């Protein structure tokens, strides 16, 4: 049976999602100021997207970012009761509309911002310590068969445009006043959380191949092969020590 509030809520929901056309009439209420609710809702979504896509907002400016955000809200209304991770399809929307905004590198910024947000709120876990690997070596064990696992906060971002350096400036709140020339060229970026801080750095081809193999479930032996295939001068010992020190891999046990 239809609830007595059904009609009112249906009408109000149509106002909120912008599908209501013509004069708004609401059961029980004088709808003169009904748009306050819609404006408040839009502002809440825009604020969250601005926080989650900080560099994109800084890059394109307030008015354009608002327009992009409103388009996103229309295409992807919130379904979860928390907006913390809202905006998961933002990069895809920008990729699908390059002809409209004419900024082909924009989705590369978006992917990096997304990786930052997900890294910031990812599950906590114990990082792998170097002594675990050293013990295996000392005991004559098989290091090649050792299974590495990326920490939950780790993201490997492959961009079509080399925006990393510029993105990092926006991310750190630096004011970018000089024109920057970008030529289409792929880049690989590592984003992860170390303690409470989200870290990021670009990866050379050997490092990316190594981490990508680990991400795909490969053991240390396979990751080493992939790294050397990508870049024959890769120093695997140095790479591994650096990554373990940066807390890129999980230990066997998980907490949090």
């Amino acid at each position, binding site marked *: 049976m239809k609830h*007595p509030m059904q009609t009112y809520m249906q009408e109000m929901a149509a106002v909120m999602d912008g599908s209501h056309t013509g004069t708004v009439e609401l059961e029980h*209420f004088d709808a003169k100021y009904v748009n306050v*609710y819609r404006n408040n809702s839009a502002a809440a979504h825009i604020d969250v997207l601005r926080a989650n896509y900080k560099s994109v907002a800084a890059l394109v400016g307030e008015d354009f970012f608002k327009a992009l955000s409103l388009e996103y809200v229309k295409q992807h209304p919130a379904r*979860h009761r*928390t907006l913390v991770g809202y905006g998961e399809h933002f990069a895809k929307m920008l990729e699908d509309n390059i002809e409209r905004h004419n900024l082909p590198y924009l989705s590369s910024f978006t992917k990096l911002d997304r990786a930052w947000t997900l890294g910031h*709120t990812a599950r*906590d*876990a114990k990082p792998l310590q170097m002594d675990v690997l050293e013990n295996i070596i000392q005991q004559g064990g098989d290091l090649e068969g050792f299974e590495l696992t990326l920490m939950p906060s780790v993201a490997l971002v492959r961009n079509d445009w080399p925006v990393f350096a510029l993105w990092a400036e926006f991310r750190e709140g630096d004011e970018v006043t000089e024109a920057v020339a970008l030529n289409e060229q792929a880049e690989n970026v590592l984003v992860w959380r170390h303690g409470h801080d989200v870290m990021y750095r670009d990866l050379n081809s050997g490092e990316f191949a190594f981490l990508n193999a680990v991400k795909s479930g490969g053991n240390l032996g396979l990751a080493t092969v992939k790294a050397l295939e990508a870049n024959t001068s890769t120093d695997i010992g140095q790479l591994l020590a650096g990554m373990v020190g940066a807390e890129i891999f999980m230990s066997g046990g998980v907490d949090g």
Partner: protein
Amino acid sequence: MTRLPNMAGMSLKPEFFREALNYSGQNMWYEVHPENYMVDGGPRLAWLEAIADKYPLSLHGVGASLGGLDPFDAAHLKSLRTLIDRFNPAQVSEHATWSSFDGRYFADLLPLPRTKAAQDHMVDRIDEFQSAIGRRILIENPTNYMATNSELDEPDFLVEIAKRAGCGLLLDVNNVYISSVNVGTNASAYIHALPPELIGEIHIAGFDEDPVHGKNLLIDAHSSPVSEPVWDLLDAALEHIGPVPVLLERDGNIPAFSELMKEHSRAQAAIDALAISEVAE
């Protein structure tokens, strides 16, 4: 679990986590929207844990859609229960509003018609919600932007719900003031119509004037200092209710912690003035 102290508290914001944690005074408690902490891990939860170890904590929800017709969101309830189990808050509260329909979440607090049917619905929903999270809650009076011809006055509507559902009330005096301007409610009569024993917390906050309609339409923005009429209403509310926890809300244009502390101190002074007047009598 301990009760919130009858003192002034403050909305906790990431902008001043460190200052909040290092605050050395004894008269403090903090409130957060639990939805901002429904994450898998990371610094937010670590900061909240450090704060909750040191100060009483209140979880003030915005996402339950208590008055909505959609079933409660199972993931939201589970996340809220997880936060309650982890942080053992002194208080949990929500809003006498709705915010979702047909699976879509609007991220705003929409008004309920004040009808007997809505009242019955809210009683059932609060009962279900309280059972699901294992806590008695407070429900907050809404901000009104639209006049209504509903059959019940807002205080009568809320008091009846609270009594039947076994929950308490959170009196937001900023919302009462905004409603008095926007839809002509009598703010003083509203406050005095609420039984003091039902009220577990008071909120104060700042409002904005609507960019088009100006001072005739006030927006509950929480982006500016508390206004003088709202400070006056706080005094009136405390005189009627007696000492209760008073929260200074701030969600936008976050100033320095020291600036917020000036307003916090004023709220604390308003509570302290009750004890002084009691002694004088």
